[in-house]
């Protein structure tokens, strides 16, 4: 569905993506995860054909999305800054979408509008932030585009609506399989939903793997300081700290299966996908604590 080779995007003053390589298969749900400013939104806007790539190759549905009518007709980009005409009410907006998108599922749109208690006669500018996001999410479901891109779709939604949204997304995906890209800051909320995770870090596709692989790739070990240090030095150490004198906890990236019985003095624990992601993309040694320690020294 999507193929990127050495994809780069530069804005006037800075570069947002450089040499990104990835392939996204048809009919998968992929989470696009990254720290703030990593380039997630730029990546998604490039795919949606909003932005023009600076260099490299990008094929969506085997075409260049920037000029392709086919890509535009078969994809939809949903985010909280979605631009909609203020002169139309919600019902009229839905009708406009129905004219443009051939797969439009009108009964579903109406049912969801009723369920989330969105008044059909209301205008976008009068809705609250969460309701606006909900309405945009409904558009995403009902359009049934072969490529559906959600960029931070749950902004402003309360916890109950977020939960409903994820459930609706999954149900809708099972009923009408399609390629979904979903970016969110709450990986812990969506990890059960995702098949694959694409981690964008430092403007590159840092990792592209399944959720379970992501969880397995990072492990936390606890134990006596010397033993932990020895273990950590054999693997890619991500973080280490002393919990109390003599004892330490380390987080390491592992490439292959570890026989835990070989290390009787250490306690292993698995991390959630979200914790794994945070440790993997945390480049600053010592974390936020270090900043405060330094400023106190002055």
């Amino acid at each position, binding site marked *: 569905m999507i193929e990127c080779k050495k994809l780069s995007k530069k*804005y006037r003053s800075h570069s947002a993506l450089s040499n990104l390589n990835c392939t996204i298969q048809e*009919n998968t749900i992929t989470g696009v995860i990254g720290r703030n400013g990593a380039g997630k939104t730029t990546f998604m*806007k490039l795919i949606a*054909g*909003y*932005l*023009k790539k600076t260099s490299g190759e990008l094929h969506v*549905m085997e075409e260049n999305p920037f*000029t*392709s*009518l*086919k890509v*535009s*007709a*078969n994809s939809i980009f949903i985010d909280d*800054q*979605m*631009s*909609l*005409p203020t*002169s*139309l009410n919600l019902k*009229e907006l839905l009708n*406009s*979408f129905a*004219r*443009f*998108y*051939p*797969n439009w599922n009108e009964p579903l749109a109406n049912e969801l509008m009723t369920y989330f208690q969105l008044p059909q006669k209301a205008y976008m500018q009068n809705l609250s932030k969460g309701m606006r996001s909900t309405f945009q999410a409904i558009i995403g479901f009902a359009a*049934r585009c*072969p490529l559906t891109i959600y960029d931070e779709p749950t902004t402003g939604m309360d916890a109950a609506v977020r939960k409903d949204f994820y459930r609706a997304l999954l149900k809708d995906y099972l009923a*009408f*399989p*399609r390629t979904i890209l979903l970016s969110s800051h709450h990986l812990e909320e969506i990890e059960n939903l995702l098949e694959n995770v694409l981690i964008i870090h430092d403007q590159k596709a840092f990792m592209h793997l399944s959720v379970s692989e992501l969880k397995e790739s990072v492990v936390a070990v606890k134990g006596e300081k010397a033993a932990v240090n020895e273990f950590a030095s054999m693997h890619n150490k991500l973080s280490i700290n002393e919990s109390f004198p003599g004892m330490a906890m380390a987080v390491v990236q592992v490439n292959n299966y570890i026989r835990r019985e070989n290390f009787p003095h250490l306690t292993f624990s698995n991390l959630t996908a979200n914790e794994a992601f945070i440790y993997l993309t945390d480049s600053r040694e010592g974390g936020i604590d270090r900043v405060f320690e330094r400023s106190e020294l002055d």
Partner: protein
Amino acid sequence: MSLNEVSLIDVVRKQVHFKWKSYTGIFQSLLILQILGLFISTLGEGSMSEPGYGRSISVQYYSSSILVGMTAMWLFINSMLLTTSAYREDDFTFVSTRWSRLLANFTFIISLALLGTVTSFLSMNVLKVYLFIKNDELILTNSLTFFETISSLVVLLSYLILICAAAYTIGSIIQRNKWVGFGLSMLLIVLGAISVDYEGTPINFLIYFIMFDSSLMLLLFKLSLANGFLFFISWMVSDNQEVRV
């Protein structure tokens, strides 16, 4: 899920339909401007009186040129506004490419020009009816034959389309680079103002060559060429434009 094949013409048709439905502000402003124009027109353009012995002649002129002028202004402003990012981002929320958007916008501004022509013509008749009712003096109107009326409307329409196309092109350039667009417009206005009155300058020649021709067909042909040229420039300028940067 299988991909849908779409035709360009179909998408352009849907976009034009969408614009007609959602750009309600544009039509409201036309209504207000036309009413205002009508009101101003009823004041008359000028008068002439000739006193004499035992009789006097007084002539009051009325014309719809203010109405047409206001319509032209309305078209100019709205065609330019169509190129702004608010409208552009709306278009890309739905199905659109840069090419289909340009086609849809040009179709839309041509239909706006048509609307402007028809409403000005109708308002002019409202003005006539009003004057007939109000005055019981002698009224002379320039009586045109059916063909003359039609051809004058066609010419008006073509001029209005030219205004739209020019405004859209200037707007597109401004969207790409504010200063180039601004500078170019100022240059055109200043140079235009200076050289319209002086024969022999290139702009004067160009304006007279394009805008005045005694043959209707030749005039329409020249205007279409000018429109085609402006369309081409708009395309060149907006082809690479990104949305929602």
